[in-house]
Protein backbone atom coordinates (compact mmCIF):
# COMPACT_ATOMS: atom_id res chain seq x y z
CA UNK A 1 0.00 0.00 0.00
CA UNK A 2 2.80 2.41 0.81
CA UNK A 3 4.21 1.80 -2.65
CA UNK A 4 0.88 2.91 -4.06
CA UNK A 5 0.89 6.20 -2.14
CA UNK A 6 4.53 6.65 -3.02
CA UNK A 7 3.63 6.33 -6.67
CA UNK A 8 0.79 8.80 -6.38
CA UNK A 9 2.54 11.52 -4.37
CA UNK A 10 6.10 10.95 -5.56
CA UNK A 11 4.82 10.76 -9.12
CA UNK A 12 2.81 13.93 -8.81
CA UNK A 13 5.82 15.70 -7.36
CA UNK A 14 8.11 14.56 -10.17
CA UNK A 15 5.56 15.75 -12.72
CA UNK A 16 5.31 19.14 -11.03
CA UNK A 17 9.11 19.48 -11.06
CA UNK A 18 9.10 18.68 -14.76
CA UNK A 19 6.53 21.38 -15.43
CA UNK A 20 8.50 23.92 -13.41
CA UNK A 21 11.63 23.24 -15.45
CA UNK A 22 9.93 23.70 -18.79
CA UNK A 23 8.15 26.79 -17.49
CA UNK A 24 11.47 28.32 -16.59
CA UNK A 25 12.90 27.49 -20.00
CA UNK A 26 9.86 29.14 -21.58
CA UNK A 27 10.97 32.56 -20.40
CA UNK A 28 14.65 32.18 -21.27
CA UNK A 29 15.97 33.70 -24.46
CA UNK A 30 16.10 31.78 -27.70
CA UNK A 31 19.39 29.99 -28.35
CA UNK A 32 18.97 28.88 -31.93
CA UNK A 33 20.49 30.68 -34.87
CA UNK A 34 18.11 32.01 -37.52
CA UNK A 35 20.17 30.45 -40.25
CA UNK A 36 19.60 32.24 -43.52
CA UNK A 37 19.54 35.59 -41.72
CA UNK A 38 22.42 34.83 -39.40
CA UNK A 39 25.47 32.97 -40.64
CA UNK A 40 27.69 30.87 -38.39
CA UNK A 41 31.34 31.70 -38.12
CA UNK A 42 33.34 29.11 -39.99
CA UNK A 43 36.35 27.88 -38.01
CA UNK A 44 39.86 28.09 -39.40
CA UNK A 45 40.22 24.34 -39.91
CA UNK A 46 36.80 23.81 -41.46
CA UNK A 47 36.89 21.15 -44.13
CA UNK A 48 35.01 22.26 -47.19
CA UNK A 49 35.88 20.84 -50.58
CA UNK A 50 39.49 21.37 -51.61
CA UNK A 51 40.71 24.31 -53.63
CA UNK A 52 43.97 25.25 -55.31
CA UNK A 53 46.41 27.67 -53.73
CA UNK A 54 47.88 30.45 -55.75
CA UNK A 55 51.55 31.28 -55.85
CA UNK A 56 51.52 34.91 -54.73
CA UNK A 57 54.52 35.90 -56.85
CA UNK A 58 53.52 34.51 -60.19
CA UNK A 59 49.76 34.44 -59.82
CA UNK A 60 49.74 30.87 -61.06
CA UNK A 61 48.68 27.80 -59.06
CA UNK A 62 51.37 26.31 -56.87
CA UNK A 63 50.60 22.86 -58.22
CA UNK A 64 53.41 21.14 -60.06
CA UNK A 65 51.24 18.32 -61.42
CA UNK A 66 52.99 15.50 -59.56
CA UNK A 67 49.69 13.67 -59.10
CA UNK A 68 50.26 12.65 -55.50
CA UNK A 69 46.84 13.88 -54.46
CA UNK A 70 45.26 11.89 -57.26
CA UNK A 71 46.93 8.70 -56.07
CA UNK A 72 46.32 9.20 -52.36
CA UNK A 73 42.61 9.87 -52.73
CA UNK A 74 40.59 6.92 -51.39
CA UNK A 75 37.70 7.47 -53.76
CA UNK A 76 39.50 8.70 -56.84
CA UNK A 77 37.72 11.99 -57.07
CA UNK A 78 40.63 14.10 -58.27
CA UNK A 79 41.70 14.18 -61.88
CA UNK A 80 44.36 16.56 -63.09
CA UNK A 81 46.17 17.16 -66.34
CA UNK A 82 49.45 19.00 -66.70
CA UNK A 83 51.15 19.94 -69.93
CA UNK A 84 54.65 21.01 -70.65
CA UNK A 85 54.54 24.12 -72.81
CA UNK A 86 57.28 24.30 -75.39
CA UNK A 87 60.51 25.77 -74.19
CA UNK A 88 59.79 25.35 -70.49
CA UNK A 89 61.08 22.85 -68.01
CA UNK A 90 58.15 22.58 -65.65
CA UNK A 91 54.69 21.25 -66.26
CA UNK A 92 51.79 23.68 -66.13
CA UNK A 93 48.42 22.70 -64.74
CA UNK A 94 45.77 22.76 -67.44
CA UNK A 95 42.90 20.96 -65.77
CA UNK A 96 42.12 20.12 -62.15
CA UNK A 97 38.76 18.50 -61.56
CA UNK A 98 37.23 17.44 -58.26
CA UNK A 99 34.31 15.06 -58.27
CA UNK A 100 32.70 16.20 -55.06
CA UNK A 101 29.98 13.53 -55.19
CA UNK A 102 32.59 10.98 -54.11
CA UNK A 103 34.73 13.10 -51.81
CA UNK A 104 34.60 12.32 -48.09
CA UNK A 105 36.72 15.30 -46.97
CA UNK A 106 39.33 13.11 -45.31
CA UNK A 107 42.22 15.38 -46.20
CA UNK A 108 44.50 12.69 -47.60
CA UNK A 109 45.19 14.77 -50.69
CA UNK A 110 46.22 17.79 -48.67
CA UNK A 111 48.52 15.74 -46.47
CA UNK A 112 50.10 14.05 -49.44
CA UNK A 113 50.86 17.33 -51.18
CA UNK A 114 54.43 18.35 -50.47
CA UNK A 115 54.05 21.79 -51.97
CA UNK A 116 51.04 23.17 -50.10
CA UNK A 117 49.26 23.55 -53.40
CA UNK A 118 45.78 22.57 -52.18
CA UNK A 119 43.80 23.47 -49.09
CA UNK A 120 40.31 23.14 -47.69
CA UNK A 121 37.88 25.83 -48.74
CA UNK A 122 35.13 27.16 -46.50
CA UNK A 123 32.24 26.61 -48.86
CA UNK A 124 29.29 24.98 -47.24
CA UNK A 125 26.35 26.46 -49.12
CA UNK A 126 26.29 23.70 -51.66
CA UNK A 127 22.95 22.63 -53.01
CA UNK A 128 21.91 21.61 -56.44
CA UNK A 129 19.46 19.32 -58.15
CA UNK A 130 21.96 18.15 -60.73
CA UNK A 131 24.81 15.77 -60.17
CA UNK A 132 27.03 17.50 -62.73
CA UNK A 133 27.14 20.63 -60.60
CA UNK A 134 29.38 18.81 -58.16
CA UNK A 135 32.21 18.23 -60.55
CA UNK A 136 34.22 21.30 -59.73
CA UNK A 137 36.76 22.77 -62.09
CA UNK A 138 39.17 24.06 -59.47
CA UNK A 139 41.41 25.85 -61.95
CA UNK A 140 38.50 27.93 -63.14
CA UNK A 141 37.53 28.56 -59.52
CA UNK A 142 41.02 29.85 -58.80
CA UNK A 143 40.84 32.24 -61.73
CA UNK A 144 37.46 33.50 -60.65
CA UNK A 145 38.81 34.20 -57.17
CA UNK A 146 41.26 36.54 -58.84
Amino acid at each position, binding site marked *: MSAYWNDVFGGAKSLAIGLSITARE*FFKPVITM*QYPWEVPEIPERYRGHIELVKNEKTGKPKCICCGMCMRSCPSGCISLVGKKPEGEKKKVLTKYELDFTKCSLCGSCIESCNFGAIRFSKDYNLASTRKEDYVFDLLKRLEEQG
Partner: protein
Amino acid sequence: MDTSIWRPIIYLVCFMAFAGLNAAYLGWCERKGAGRIQRRTGPMEVGFHGLLQPLADGLKLMTKQLLVPEGVDQILFRIAPILAMIPALTSMVVIPFSDNIQGRAVELSVLMLFALASIGMIAILIGGWASANKYAVISAARAVSQNLAYEIPMLLTVITIVMITGSMNLQDIAMDQQGGFWHWNIFRFDKSIFMPVSFLIFFICSVAETNRAPFDMAEAESELIAGFMTEYGSMGFGLFMMGEYLNIVVGACLTTILFLGGWSCPFGLFPGVWWFLIKIYILIFTFIWVRWTYPRTQVYKLLNLSWKILIPFSMVNLLVTAAFIKVF
Protein backbone atom coordinates in the same frame (compact mmCIF):
# COMPACT_ATOMS: atom_id res chain seq x y z
CA MET B 1 -36.51 33.62 -25.89
CA ASP B 2 -36.12 35.88 -28.90
CA THR B 3 -37.70 34.20 -31.89
CA SER B 4 -36.14 36.51 -34.45
CA ILE B 5 -34.45 34.70 -37.31
CA TRP B 6 -31.29 36.80 -36.98
CA ARG B 7 -30.26 35.60 -33.62
CA PRO B 8 -29.51 31.97 -34.59
CA ILE B 9 -27.78 33.11 -37.76
CA ILE B 10 -25.53 35.55 -35.94
CA TYR B 11 -24.73 32.92 -33.35
CA LEU B 12 -24.01 30.34 -36.01
CA VAL B 13 -21.63 32.65 -37.84
CA CYS B 14 -19.90 33.78 -34.67
CA PHE B 15 -19.46 30.29 -33.24
CA MET B 16 -18.24 28.92 -36.54
CA ALA B 17 -15.77 31.78 -36.82
CA PHE B 18 -14.63 31.24 -33.23
CA ALA B 19 -14.27 27.51 -33.78
CA GLY B 20 -12.46 27.91 -37.10
CA LEU B 21 -10.14 30.56 -35.76
CA ASN B 22 -9.28 28.43 -32.76
CA ALA B 23 -8.77 25.30 -34.81
CA ALA B 24 -6.37 27.15 -37.09
CA TYR B 25 -4.55 29.34 -34.62
CA LEU B 26 -4.15 26.86 -31.81
CA GLY B 27 -1.82 25.02 -34.16
CA TRP B 28 0.23 28.18 -34.38
CA CYS B 29 0.08 28.67 -30.60
CA GLU B 30 1.18 25.11 -30.08
CA ARG B 31 4.15 25.52 -32.36
CA LYS B 32 5.12 28.82 -30.81
CA GLY B 33 4.69 27.45 -27.30
CA ALA B 34 6.69 24.35 -28.08
CA GLY B 35 9.33 26.54 -29.65
CA ARG B 36 9.65 28.77 -26.61
CA ILE B 37 9.79 25.83 -24.22
CA GLN B 38 12.55 24.33 -26.33
CA ARG B 39 14.19 27.74 -26.67
CA ARG B 40 13.54 27.99 -30.37
CA THR B 41 11.52 30.67 -32.11
CA GLY B 42 8.86 28.53 -33.76
CA PRO B 43 7.38 29.68 -37.09
CA MET B 44 8.87 33.01 -38.13
CA GLU B 45 8.87 33.30 -41.89
CA VAL B 46 5.23 33.51 -43.04
CA GLY B 47 3.94 36.87 -41.90
CA PHE B 48 4.95 38.72 -38.76
CA HIS B 49 6.26 36.04 -36.35
CA GLY B 50 4.67 33.39 -38.56
CA LEU B 51 1.16 34.71 -37.98
CA LEU B 52 0.07 33.73 -41.47
CA GLN B 53 1.43 30.21 -41.04
CA PRO B 54 -2.02 28.61 -40.34
CA LEU B 55 -3.28 30.21 -43.54
CA ALA B 56 -0.37 28.81 -45.52
CA ASP B 57 -0.80 25.38 -43.91
CA GLY B 58 -4.51 25.43 -44.67
CA LEU B 59 -3.87 26.39 -48.29
CA LYS B 60 -1.33 23.63 -48.61
CA LEU B 61 -3.65 21.02 -47.14
CA MET B 62 -6.56 22.13 -49.31
CA THR B 63 -4.62 22.11 -52.55
CA LYS B 64 -3.24 18.64 -51.98
CA GLN B 65 -4.80 15.65 -53.65
CA LEU B 66 -7.41 13.90 -51.56
CA LEU B 67 -5.88 10.47 -51.78
CA VAL B 68 -8.02 7.46 -50.98
CA PRO B 69 -5.78 4.39 -50.92
CA GLU B 70 -6.81 1.16 -52.52
CA GLY B 71 -8.36 -1.42 -50.20
CA VAL B 72 -9.82 1.02 -47.70
CA ASP B 73 -13.48 1.09 -46.82
CA GLN B 74 -14.52 3.80 -49.27
CA ILE B 75 -17.46 5.23 -47.35
CA LEU B 76 -16.17 5.00 -43.79
CA PHE B 77 -12.76 6.34 -44.81
CA ARG B 78 -14.43 9.52 -46.07
CA ILE B 79 -16.88 9.83 -43.18
CA ALA B 80 -14.31 9.59 -40.37
CA PRO B 81 -12.64 13.01 -40.65
CA ILE B 82 -16.01 14.73 -40.92
CA LEU B 83 -17.23 12.79 -37.94
CA ALA B 84 -14.19 13.98 -35.99
CA MET B 85 -14.99 17.62 -36.72
CA ILE B 86 -18.80 17.77 -36.48
CA PRO B 87 -19.32 16.77 -32.81
CA ALA B 88 -16.65 19.19 -31.68
CA LEU B 89 -18.35 21.97 -33.64
CA THR B 90 -21.78 20.99 -32.37
CA SER B 91 -20.58 21.07 -28.77
CA MET B 92 -19.99 24.78 -29.20
CA VAL B 93 -23.73 25.34 -29.42
CA VAL B 94 -24.50 24.52 -25.80
CA ILE B 95 -21.47 26.15 -24.19
CA PRO B 96 -22.38 29.36 -22.36
CA PHE B 97 -19.63 31.88 -22.90
CA SER B 98 -21.37 34.36 -20.68
CA ASP B 99 -24.75 34.77 -19.02
CA ASN B 100 -26.22 35.98 -22.32
CA ILE B 101 -23.94 34.43 -24.94
CA GLN B 102 -25.07 30.89 -25.56
CA GLY B 103 -26.14 29.25 -28.78
CA ARG B 104 -28.96 27.26 -27.34
CA ALA B 105 -29.84 26.81 -23.69
CA VAL B 106 -30.33 23.07 -23.43
CA GLU B 107 -31.55 21.78 -20.10
CA LEU B 108 -29.31 18.69 -20.17
CA SER B 109 -26.32 20.38 -21.76
CA VAL B 110 -23.75 18.50 -19.66
CA LEU B 111 -25.12 15.20 -20.83
CA MET B 112 -25.22 16.38 -24.42
CA LEU B 113 -21.57 17.44 -24.34
CA PHE B 114 -20.49 14.02 -23.13
CA ALA B 115 -22.61 12.29 -25.74
CA LEU B 116 -20.95 14.39 -28.43
CA ALA B 117 -17.50 13.70 -27.01
CA SER B 118 -18.11 9.99 -27.39
CA ILE B 119 -18.90 10.44 -31.07
CA GLY B 120 -15.44 11.94 -31.50
CA MET B 121 -14.01 8.67 -30.23
CA ILE B 122 -16.08 6.76 -32.76
CA ALA B 123 -14.54 8.90 -35.51
CA ILE B 124 -11.09 7.65 -34.50
CA LEU B 125 -12.36 4.08 -34.44
CA ILE B 126 -13.92 4.38 -37.87
CA GLY B 127 -10.91 6.18 -39.32
CA GLY B 128 -8.51 3.58 -37.99
CA TRP B 129 -10.64 0.66 -39.05
CA ALA B 130 -11.41 1.97 -42.52
CA SER B 131 -7.75 2.70 -43.30
CA ALA B 132 -7.00 -1.01 -43.62
CA ASN B 133 -3.61 -0.33 -42.07
CA LYS B 134 -2.31 -2.44 -39.22
CA TYR B 135 -0.92 0.53 -37.34
CA ALA B 136 -4.22 2.36 -37.72
CA VAL B 137 -6.22 -0.59 -36.42
CA ILE B 138 -3.99 -0.89 -33.35
CA SER B 139 -4.39 2.82 -32.81
CA ALA B 140 -8.18 2.61 -33.10
CA ALA B 141 -8.34 -0.18 -30.55
CA ARG B 142 -6.15 1.80 -28.19
CA ALA B 143 -8.24 4.93 -28.59
CA VAL B 144 -11.44 3.13 -27.69
CA SER B 145 -10.07 1.44 -24.58
CA GLN B 146 -8.49 4.69 -23.47
CA ASN B 147 -11.63 6.75 -23.99
CA LEU B 148 -13.78 4.21 -22.18
CA ALA B 149 -11.39 4.13 -19.25
CA TYR B 150 -11.26 7.89 -18.93
CA GLU B 151 -14.93 8.67 -19.39
CA ILE B 152 -15.73 6.93 -16.12
CA PRO B 153 -13.66 9.13 -13.76
CA MET B 154 -14.67 12.15 -15.81
CA LEU B 155 -18.35 11.42 -15.43
CA LEU B 156 -17.90 10.60 -11.75
CA THR B 157 -16.43 14.05 -11.13
CA VAL B 158 -19.19 15.63 -13.19
CA ILE B 159 -21.79 13.86 -11.07
CA THR B 160 -20.15 15.48 -8.04
CA ILE B 161 -20.62 18.89 -9.60
CA VAL B 162 -24.17 18.10 -10.64
CA MET B 163 -24.93 17.04 -7.08
CA ILE B 164 -23.52 20.28 -5.72
CA THR B 165 -25.45 22.44 -8.16
CA GLY B 166 -28.51 20.29 -8.54
CA SER B 167 -28.70 20.95 -12.24
CA MET B 168 -27.39 19.49 -15.49
CA ASN B 169 -27.55 22.83 -17.22
CA LEU B 170 -24.16 24.44 -17.81
CA GLN B 171 -25.72 27.88 -17.45
CA ASP B 172 -27.02 27.01 -13.97
CA ILE B 173 -23.72 25.45 -12.96
CA ALA B 174 -21.85 28.59 -13.96
CA MET B 175 -24.42 30.92 -12.35
CA ASP B 176 -24.04 28.98 -9.12
CA GLN B 177 -20.34 29.96 -8.92
CA GLN B 178 -20.63 33.72 -9.48
CA GLY B 179 -18.88 36.28 -7.32
CA GLY B 180 -15.27 35.67 -6.35
CA PHE B 181 -13.04 32.66 -6.58
CA TRP B 182 -14.15 31.29 -3.22
CA HIS B 183 -17.45 30.41 -4.88
CA TRP B 184 -15.79 28.38 -7.61
CA ASN B 185 -16.34 24.67 -7.50
CA ILE B 186 -12.61 24.03 -7.29
CA PHE B 187 -12.51 25.75 -3.87
CA ARG B 188 -15.90 24.61 -2.55
CA PHE B 189 -14.48 23.09 0.60
CA ASP B 190 -17.87 23.31 2.26
CA LYS B 191 -19.16 20.69 -0.17
CA SER B 192 -16.15 18.43 -0.26
CA ILE B 193 -12.57 18.78 0.90
CA PHE B 194 -11.30 17.04 -2.22
CA MET B 195 -12.53 19.52 -4.81
CA PRO B 196 -9.02 20.58 -6.02
CA VAL B 197 -8.17 16.89 -6.48
CA SER B 198 -11.39 16.50 -8.34
CA PHE B 199 -10.41 19.37 -10.63
CA LEU B 200 -7.06 17.71 -11.28
CA ILE B 201 -8.75 14.43 -12.13
CA PHE B 202 -11.10 16.18 -14.50
CA PHE B 203 -8.22 17.99 -16.17
CA ILE B 204 -6.18 14.81 -16.59
CA CYS B 205 -9.21 13.07 -18.03
CA SER B 206 -9.84 15.86 -20.50
CA VAL B 207 -6.21 15.61 -21.65
CA ALA B 208 -6.74 11.88 -22.13
CA GLU B 209 -10.14 12.31 -23.78
CA THR B 210 -8.70 14.68 -26.37
CA ASN B 211 -5.88 12.22 -27.10
CA ARG B 212 -3.19 14.71 -26.24
CA ALA B 213 0.33 13.90 -25.10
CA PRO B 214 1.30 12.37 -22.71
CA PHE B 215 -1.80 10.27 -23.36
CA ASP B 216 -1.66 10.30 -27.16
CA MET B 217 -1.84 6.53 -27.40
CA ALA B 218 -3.79 6.72 -30.62
CA GLU B 219 -1.27 8.92 -32.39
CA ALA B 220 1.96 7.67 -30.75
CA GLU B 221 4.22 8.72 -33.61
CA SER B 222 7.22 6.71 -32.49
CA GLU B 223 5.23 3.48 -32.29
CA LEU B 224 2.33 3.72 -34.69
CA ILE B 225 3.70 6.25 -37.24
CA ALA B 226 0.64 8.48 -36.95
CA GLY B 227 -1.93 5.95 -35.73
CA PHE B 228 -5.37 6.40 -37.20
CA MET B 229 -4.18 9.31 -39.34
CA THR B 230 -1.48 7.29 -41.11
CA GLU B 231 -3.40 6.91 -44.36
CA TYR B 232 -4.94 10.36 -44.35
CA GLY B 233 -3.52 13.23 -46.31
CA SER B 234 -4.69 16.62 -47.47
CA MET B 235 -7.84 17.97 -45.80
CA GLY B 236 -8.77 14.59 -44.31
CA PHE B 237 -5.74 14.99 -42.10
CA GLY B 238 -6.56 18.67 -41.71
CA LEU B 239 -10.04 17.89 -40.39
CA PHE B 240 -8.64 15.44 -37.86
CA MET B 241 -6.20 18.09 -36.66
CA MET B 242 -8.91 20.74 -36.46
CA GLY B 243 -11.15 18.29 -34.62
CA GLU B 244 -8.38 17.67 -32.11
CA TYR B 245 -7.87 21.36 -31.44
CA LEU B 246 -11.60 22.00 -31.20
CA ASN B 247 -11.86 19.17 -28.70
CA ILE B 248 -9.21 20.92 -26.66
CA VAL B 249 -11.24 24.13 -26.74
CA VAL B 250 -14.38 22.26 -25.70
CA GLY B 251 -12.47 20.49 -22.94
CA ALA B 252 -11.07 23.79 -21.66
CA CYS B 253 -14.53 25.41 -21.80
CA LEU B 254 -16.07 22.54 -19.88
CA THR B 255 -13.34 22.63 -17.22
CA THR B 256 -13.80 26.37 -16.89
CA ILE B 257 -17.55 26.15 -16.47
CA LEU B 258 -17.56 23.17 -14.15
CA PHE B 259 -14.70 24.17 -11.87
CA LEU B 260 -13.44 27.69 -12.53
CA GLY B 261 -16.67 29.61 -12.32
CA GLY B 262 -17.26 30.18 -16.03
CA TRP B 263 -17.30 33.90 -16.77
CA SER B 264 -17.06 35.06 -13.16
CA CYS B 265 -14.18 37.26 -12.16
CA PRO B 266 -11.89 35.91 -9.42
CA PHE B 267 -12.54 39.03 -7.33
CA GLY B 268 -16.19 39.53 -8.15
CA LEU B 269 -15.58 42.49 -10.49
CA PHE B 270 -16.80 42.88 -14.07
CA PRO B 271 -17.86 39.35 -14.82
CA GLY B 272 -18.09 38.77 -18.53
CA VAL B 273 -17.03 36.84 -21.55
CA TRP B 274 -13.43 38.11 -21.33
CA TRP B 275 -12.86 36.27 -18.06
CA PHE B 276 -14.15 33.13 -19.71
CA LEU B 277 -11.73 33.55 -22.60
CA ILE B 278 -8.80 34.27 -20.29
CA LYS B 279 -9.52 31.13 -18.31
CA ILE B 280 -9.88 28.83 -21.29
CA TYR B 281 -6.68 30.11 -22.87
CA ILE B 282 -4.76 29.58 -19.65
CA LEU B 283 -6.07 26.01 -19.64
CA ILE B 284 -5.19 25.54 -23.30
CA PHE B 285 -1.71 26.80 -22.62
CA THR B 286 -1.46 24.20 -19.88
CA PHE B 287 -2.47 21.56 -22.40
CA ILE B 288 0.40 22.67 -24.62
CA TRP B 289 2.81 23.00 -21.71
CA VAL B 290 2.05 19.48 -20.48
CA ARG B 291 2.44 18.04 -23.96
CA TRP B 292 5.92 19.44 -24.39
CA THR B 293 7.15 18.36 -20.98
CA TYR B 294 6.48 14.66 -20.54
CA PRO B 295 7.27 11.47 -22.36
CA ARG B 296 4.34 9.37 -23.52
CA THR B 297 2.75 6.82 -21.21
CA GLN B 298 2.24 3.22 -22.19
CA VAL B 299 -1.18 1.70 -22.85
CA TYR B 300 -1.42 -0.45 -19.75
CA LYS B 301 0.15 2.15 -17.49
CA LEU B 302 -2.42 4.57 -18.81
CA LEU B 303 -5.31 2.25 -18.06
CA ASN B 304 -3.79 1.50 -14.64
CA LEU B 305 -3.73 5.21 -13.90
CA SER B 306 -7.41 5.43 -14.68
CA TRP B 307 -8.63 2.29 -12.95
CA LYS B 308 -6.29 2.27 -9.97
CA ILE B 309 -5.91 5.95 -9.18
CA LEU B 310 -8.41 8.23 -10.89
CA ILE B 311 -11.57 6.14 -10.50
CA PRO B 312 -11.06 5.33 -6.77
CA PHE B 313 -10.20 8.95 -6.05
CA SER B 314 -13.21 10.34 -7.88
CA MET B 315 -15.40 7.72 -6.28
CA VAL B 316 -14.19 8.76 -2.82
CA ASN B 317 -14.82 12.37 -3.73
CA LEU B 318 -18.33 11.51 -4.87
CA LEU B 319 -19.10 9.77 -1.60
CA VAL B 320 -17.57 12.56 0.49
CA THR B 321 -19.60 15.17 -1.40
CA ALA B 322 -22.76 13.15 -0.98
CA ALA B 323 -22.08 12.88 2.74
CA PHE B 324 -21.37 16.62 3.06
CA ILE B 325 -24.56 17.53 1.20
CA LYS B 326 -26.57 15.17 3.37
CA VAL B 327 -25.04 16.37 6.64
CA PHE B 328 -24.99 20.13 6.08
